[in-house]
């Protein structure tokens, strides 16, 4: 594959996605160094302008200051929770898919399926009450809530690959279980996971924010982006920045993250060019390694 043509838009897109990611990530990583630990409530509530470039929130705090501080928890708790959910649920799902015993599969998946229909709200309420305001507890809960769904998703995606001759051939070569699991099945799961992860993070951010509404989770005055969006929602028309700025950060983060994942995991640019070239349906390639 020497044709450079399809590569350019892809690289461009990757750059675009990276740029989208860069802003929220930078804000999350370096913002806390720039902003004071506690954003002083020194302005009028929901004021626009007046020394505050992005106005103030309902407590009269500088929105920019909040924005700079609110990244780590907003991104950290949600991404951490989703990562953990994938770690737990993913391994469970893979193991269930790979087990050649119906019983093992059942033993692994049934408990998970009992948890699946538990309303997240109820669980969050209970945990939130027990360990009020501790990000770790919230992350763990959100992870636990997501793990069953992830397990099911991963299992379904891996099941076909697990029964394929490729998996058999690997076992015939004496490959370790984990390699079959995380190598072959993992890779079969990857596109599904990539499609899922970003939306799940976005959902997790707002599950955490929603937990706040119920008076659980984080302090309603915390600078967390999700919390700020939720807390200022009423002022959407009065002081739009208080809602839009943190929401924009979250949107940029999830969109950037997902586009990047799409790009990295599905080298579909060829498919795109082929489609443009008028082929009815494009065949995605397995690229020979360079």
């Amino acid at each position, binding site marked *: 594959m020497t044709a450079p043509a399809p590569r350019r838009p892809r690289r461009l897109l990757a750059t675009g996605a990276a740029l989208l990611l860069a802003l929220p990530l930078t804000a999350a990583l370096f913002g806390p160094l720039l902003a004071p630990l506690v954003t002083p409530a020194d302005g009028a509530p929901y004021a626009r302008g007046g020394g505050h470039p992005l106005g103030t929130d309902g407590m009269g705090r500088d929105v920019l200051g909040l924005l700079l501080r609110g990244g780590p928890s907003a991104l950290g708790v949600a991404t951490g929770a989703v990562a953990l959910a994938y770690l737990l649920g993913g391994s469970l799902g893979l193991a269930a898919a790979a087990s050649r015993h119906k019983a093992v599969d059942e033993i692994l998946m049934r408990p998970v*399926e009992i948890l699946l*229909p538990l309303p997240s709200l109820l669980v969050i309420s209970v945990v939130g009450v027990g360990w009020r305001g501790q990000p770790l507890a919230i992350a763990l809960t959100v992870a636990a809530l997501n793990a069953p769904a992830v397990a099911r998703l991963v299992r379904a995606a891996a099941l076909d690959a697990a029964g394929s001759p490729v998996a058999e051939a690997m076992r015939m070569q004496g490959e370790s279980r984990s390699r079959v699991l995380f190598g072959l099945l993992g890779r079969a799961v990857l596109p599904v996971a990539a499609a899922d992860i970003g939306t799940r993070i976005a959902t997790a951010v707002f599950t955490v924010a929603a937990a706040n509404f119920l008076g659980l989770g984080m302090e309603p005055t915390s600078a967390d982006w999700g919390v700020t969006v939720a807390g200022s929602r009423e002022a959407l028309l009065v002081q739009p920045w208080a809602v839009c700025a943190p*929401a924009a950060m979250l949107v940029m983060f999830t969109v950037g993250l997902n586009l990047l994942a799409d790009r990295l995991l599905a080298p579909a640019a060829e498919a795109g060019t082929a489609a443009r070239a008028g082929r009815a349906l494009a065949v995605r390639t397995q690229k020979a390694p360079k």
Partner: protein
Amino acid sequence: MLRYALRRGLLTLVQLAVLAVVVFLLTSMLPGDAAEVAFNEQAGAVQVDELRARLGLDRPLVERFADWSGALLHGDLGTSLAGHRPVTGILADSLAATLLLAAVTAALVVPLAVVLGLLMGLRAGTRLDRALSAVLLALTSLPDFVLALALVAVFSLRLGWLPSTWVGADSGDLLRHPALFVLPVAVLLARTVCLLSRQIRAGTLAALSAGYVVQARRLGVPRGRLVLRHVLPGAAVPGVQELARTGDQLLGGVLVVEAVFAIPGTATALVDAVQNRDVPTVQALTLLLAALALLVNLAADLVCHRLAPRTEVLR
């Protein structure tokens, strides 16, 4: 297939039973009880104790659970601790609106997600795909309540095209006012469609490179048919799994939607019940929702079983 379905159906019953215990424990782990919550800010300890005794909350946990499950076996869901009326009444009141809403959403979500997912998958890498992906992702990253408020601000308050809430809507003839459904369903759809269509996009990409799709194309199966009959079944597997999960997603979304649009539904009832520590109502509602979720899961499993028959060899 039938045997499989039967076995799964039985398992679902067991799951429900376990779930009942879990939910009971969870709700009783919440601080405060129905009596305490009932008098929050308004009454003293004496009255709270009296109410507690009257509601039977002073009895041990096990005894209360035994009572509750015993009654359940006779088809009695008990009496609400908050409203002192039968839980069935609460269920009946709240169920209609939510089910209607969920049904309309479900009827729309699948075709929409399939069309969008296929479109993105078939045009992967093109500008259309990127634009659609970005818009859909942005929609999921927007919290429901912001989306809902923004939609109301534009379509009801500014343009006046659509009703902003269900306040005053007659629950009897909701269906005669389709306009009522537009905004709530739009909010509910936003996230679920995105979740699903992304899975279908991923599945489509995978299916497109599969040998059988290539061969079908080489045999001149026309594009539309190829997509629907050859690409889609394979592409749908993760999507179906995702659909099974949208139950909880929807419940979360429904909560916001019900609040913003004043829809008296199950999600609101559930939150109320949790806040009121109204254990019988929480139990009944979660069991009901769980039963629905399990049913959807069961259906999803059966569909996947059919879509990936090769897995049968394994098991």
